[in-house]
């Protein structure tokens, strides 16, 4: 069983996850898995291959998320995408532990970036910032 832990830097962003106890009205993410995959994708986008640095501090709460949850929510292809994209090889796809650590590392990077963004905006408008980010950064 492989778990993906939530880095400590994710704490300020947890209110934007609906399962969070102190979730806000403009919370965007239905599950912590959705949140992790979003922030890991952004972290990878922002830091590239350099961003895969081992993370040492994680939150006790929420608990780590089993990788099967990612699979069930059809998020596994994206993990595979990030693994292949990072290594340039398909060999990584069979190593779930490595994939999990990689996701943790990029989630850390993504959280750090979004924390900075959060500081520059008001909490009520953070979802707008995220949407703008998606729109601007994801331009084809």
């Amino acid at each position, binding site marked *: 069983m492989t778990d993906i832990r939530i880095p400590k830097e994710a704490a300020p962003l947890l209110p934007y996850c609906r399962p969070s106890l102190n979730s806000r*009205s*403009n*919370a*965007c*993410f*239905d599950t912590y898995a*959705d949140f992790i*995959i*979003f*922030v*890991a*994708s*952004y972290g*990878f*986008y922002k830091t590239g291959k350099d961003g895969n640095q081992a993370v040492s501090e994680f939150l006790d709460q929420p608990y780590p998320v089993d990788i099967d949850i990612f*699979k069930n929510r*059809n*998020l*596994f*292809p*994206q*993990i*595979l*995408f*990030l693994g*292949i*994209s990072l290594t*340039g*090889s*398909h060999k990584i*796809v*069979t190593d779930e532990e490595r994939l999990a650590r990689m996701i943790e590392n990029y989630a850390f990077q*993504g959280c750090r970036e979004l924390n900075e963004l959060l500081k520059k905006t008001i909490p009520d408008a953070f*979802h*707008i910032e*995220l*949407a*703008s980010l*998606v*729109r601007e*950064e*994801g*331009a*084809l």
Partner: protein
Amino acid sequence: MLFKELRIKDFLIFKGTNLIEFPSVDESDSSLVLVLAANNAGKTSIIRALRFLCYGDLLGYSDKPFELINKAARNDAQSNIDGWVQATFIDNKKTVTFKRSISAIKIRNGYNLNSITLQKIDHKPDGDRFAQDQTVMQRQLEKLVPKELFDYFYFQGEDLAKQLMEGTRHTSIASGFSKMLHIEAWTQAASNVLAVGKKFEDELRNLVRSNREYHDKLEKLETFRMNHNDFQDKLKELASEDKEVNRSIIETSNKIIGLTEGGPNEQWAERLKKCRLEQKKSEREIIDIDNNICRIVSDTKGIPFLVKEFSAVSLVLKEMQDANLLPADITEGFVERLLKSNTCICGRPLHLVENQVERNCIDEYRNRSLSSELNSGLMGLLNALEEESKSSYKRKVVAFIKSAGEAIGKRKKLIVKQYELGVEIEDLEQKLSSAKHEEVSRLLRKARTLNKRRLEIKDDQTNYESRMKATKRLLDDLNIEVQRIANQRNISEENNLLKCQEHATQIHKLIHQSLRILKKSFHEIMQSSISQYYDTVVTDGTKAYIDPESLLPAIKTLEGDTQKNIGGGQRQLLVISHIIALSQLRRELHNQLYNLKIGVGKLDDQSFFMDSIFAPTDDVYARHVANILHGKARQILLLLAQQQWHESVRGAIEPHTDKVYRFRLFTNKENVKEEDYFVNYQQKKVSLVKLLDNKGSEEISYSRIEEIN
């Protein structure tokens, strides 16, 4: 009551028939009859004889009443004997004679009383009438000569003075005055009326007690009636208030209409309303958009950040396809099962231990196989990266970007719109506020309050109406019930009793008031009179005072203390002054009643027998008394002893004497000399004693009354 004549036969000192005739007097006149007597000639016997006549008083002879008959007459009598006193009175123009006789039966050693009888003759123009009933006669006589006042009318010197000086304590004389002046009648009338009132009250109480049920019902009826009236009043008040509130509502509404109808205010208010609606709508739209944006963000799963890597990853996946790794048709599970079965899928036997080639071949299979999950994941990824695929990442990203852009744009517009609406709302509020908005608001508040009050009034009206209806029903029922009971009882009797009781109370009050006024008037007349005759004569500064209640006299010093020890002359003066004052009062009363045309007879028709009024008096007071005596009372009989008939008295009395009598003492006493018993009257010597011849035998003394001409 005046005397016409007085006859005395063989009674006490008087022997034979003795007569005193009183001069007839006109209504305005007065008369003075003088009786001169020797000392011990028995002049007081006249008054005693009167007492016998009036009341049947045995005058101390109750053991041997026959001794009231003159002793000399008894001695002379051969058989039964009688003595009597007879008086003819004129009272209220009627002449009546009363006669009381005592008869005795002669026995061997003396007499025994036979009878004492009273007779009455009414002298009428058509003849005399003899009365029969002694009790009635006695009552009539006592009415003419009240017992309480006997000593006042027919008095002996100092005795009356002493009685009067006892002051208000002497209730019998006071009570006599009260009778004489009809005060007692007033008091009696008052107490009778009171008794009647009490009787009415008792009857009423009995009637009321017997009709307690009726009264209870009446009381209840009254209570309900009051409640009914209260409700009616309350409803009237509410109706009036309702009218007023309604008027205020119309007035307020008109004002509001006047302030808001037409003009920019109304348009502003309308626009403000719309703006607020739009603002709320856009708020809701923003919320919807925000929710949509959140969903978009979530749905992207961060894929748009990976766009640059699409082609690289596609290449790796292509390579996997080229290397026949993908799709992973042979899975790890298949290889494991194959290895365990030792038979190839084509059916030929496998020799993996001995045959290196076969082992390498199977290992290669193992290396190139993927788990089904991984295969599925990679195939999904491959599919997503296919541009033509319906679920390709590229399409998704385009869709995300488009919908996010639209949502953000729309949101922006809404934000702008909201801002603009906010500005407009503020502007409109400002305009309305600076116009008459406040006044309208105030009026609207007032209208709301008035409407609320109107509803309350309606509630109250409904409430009171239902209560009034209920009370009316009860009242009707009670009325029927009361009527039913009333039919069974005599209400008119109760009403009559009530009226009678009220009248009795009023009459009682009236009598009391009248009596008070009457007594006050009596007192003033008597006080004025007694002051005139007493105060002006005495030299020691004392003053005569009439008690307002008893009308009895008293003497007071300058310091206001009651003086009881005064000289004999002053006492006599006080008595005479009081008699004169009383006569004045009666005369005054008579005149007043005469003026009012109330014929009650002559109230001052009163005779006075005055015995020895100068006895304890010095010359100065005697002269004063003598001077004031004449003309002050309608009829005076003055009994004077020889020694009181001195010059100063004689000078004052003699010219006013209408008739003069002497008591002539007939005696065989040895030491009596006729020459010692002469008095002067109108320059004549009048003898008061006649010596009897039969000296040596038993001592005899008796008197006879003889007129002096």
